[in-house]
């Protein structure tokens, strides 16, 4: 029997190694897997690269993770406002920051998921963020070549999951989650609800189980009012 459920957060995060590149779902705190992140705070893996749209503003778990000093790099589109631990590490040069336009970030992750090593995008052409990057003209317009962004681990928040790893999301909690879930060697999901196999309508599954490795059910709370 295929059963991707694990008993707790510790089991869910087992085997994450030093130097791991970790995709973190969520846009702001909505869809951000707080409890998995919380578990990562007490993990021993170091020199992590976190790929996240934000730098943890409003998040109960991402700033404390930065505070451990175990994150070497953040790949991010919008690290403002920066919570104090990130800001301090950044200003003291203790954390590297790679700024990527939000759509390019999503597409680089999707490319990694879909076996596309590189693609061309108009985004950032002619700007400082394209400096040092290869560019090319197609039909008279300039495009920037961008590379797939592969990861070792993805931390995902779902609304419902079955034992095969099929997932649905809730509202705008979807955001980066289905994209990141496809792009990591090890995709770890915290889900609010477990569904029986066959309970999720095949027509409405957003992330098919093929992309998912581990599921942990967590009675997490709804995002705070914004």
């Amino acid at each position, binding site marked *: 029997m295929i059963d991707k459920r694990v008993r707790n957060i510790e089991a869910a995060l087992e085997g994450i190694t030093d130097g791991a590149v970790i995709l973190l779902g969520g*846009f*702001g705190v*909505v869809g951000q897997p707080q409890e998995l992140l919380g578990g990562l705070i007490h993990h021993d893996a170091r020199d992590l690269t976190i790929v996240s*749209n934000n*730098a943890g503003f*409003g998040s109960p778990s991402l700033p404390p993770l930065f505070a451990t000093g175990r994150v070497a790099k953040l790949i*991010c*589109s*919008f*690290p*403002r406002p*920066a919570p104090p631990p990130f*800001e301090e590490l*950044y200003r003291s040069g203790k954390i590297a*920051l790679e*700024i*990527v*336009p*939000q*759509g*390019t970030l*999503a*597409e680089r*992750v*999707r490319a990694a998921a879909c076996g596309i090593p590189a693609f061309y*995008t*108009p*985004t*950032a*052409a*002619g*700007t*400082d*963020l394209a400096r040092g990057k290869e560019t090319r003209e197609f039909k008279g317009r300039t495009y920037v070549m961008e590379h797939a962004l592969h990861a070792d681990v993805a931390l995902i928040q779902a609304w419902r999951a079955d034992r095969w790893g099929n997932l649905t999301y*809730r*509202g*705008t*909690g*979807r*955001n*980066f*989650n*289905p*994209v990141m879930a496809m792009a990591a060697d090890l995709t770890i999901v915290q889900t609010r609800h477990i569904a029986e196999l066959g309970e999720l309508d095949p027509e409405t599954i*957003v992330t098919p189980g093929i992309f998912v490795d581990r599921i942990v059910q967590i009675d997490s709370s*709804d*995002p*705070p*009012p*914004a």
Partner: protein
Amino acid sequence: MINEIKSPSRTDMAARVARDIPEGWYVNLGLGLPTLIPDYIPKDREVVFHSENGVLGMGPVPPKDQTDTWLINATKQNITLLKGAALFHHADSFGMIRGGHIDLCVLGAYEVAQNGDIANWSTAQNDAIPAVGGAMDLCSGAKRLWVLMEHMTKDGRSRIVERCTYPLTAASVVKRVYTNLAVLDVTPRGFEVIDIAPNLTFEDLQSRTSARLSRSE
């Protein structure tokens, strides 16, 4: 001298933009001033608002006691979904943007140049943590880019310029600029004045604008 001019209020500016958005357009709105626009779209005119975190058919901020906190917009405010709304993931959402499916994006800016360049993501101050969000994707991807901003900075410099001094968000993309003093089209011949604030002459406007203006024909 600026104080002599009876500038429209911020809400007047948003209303002025709303007037020009026809029924059926798919529209993405940036932070700040642009977020006021939907309030001025007549109720019987269906315009579909997009939020880059995966929403089409975004409705207004809900009353506090009816908030679904799983629904936010790109500025991370709680929102509602209108009938006909759809949810999707970030790669699909930015596919829509990059692929030219958004009819209109209205953003704020620091500067707009006469060739359509826009600078709105960084003031290149060394102490700021850089952050771009979806601004570059929206500027290069939307079918039309309009800018809504104050005509001048607080210290009296024109934001309508020959050439941007701040780092570009995208090159040659702005189609129109709405300010508290005028509405300007970006044309192959530079800025063309489409509309001008009451009690302001063309010469008054030119004197407050560092790029050269031409009259609409």
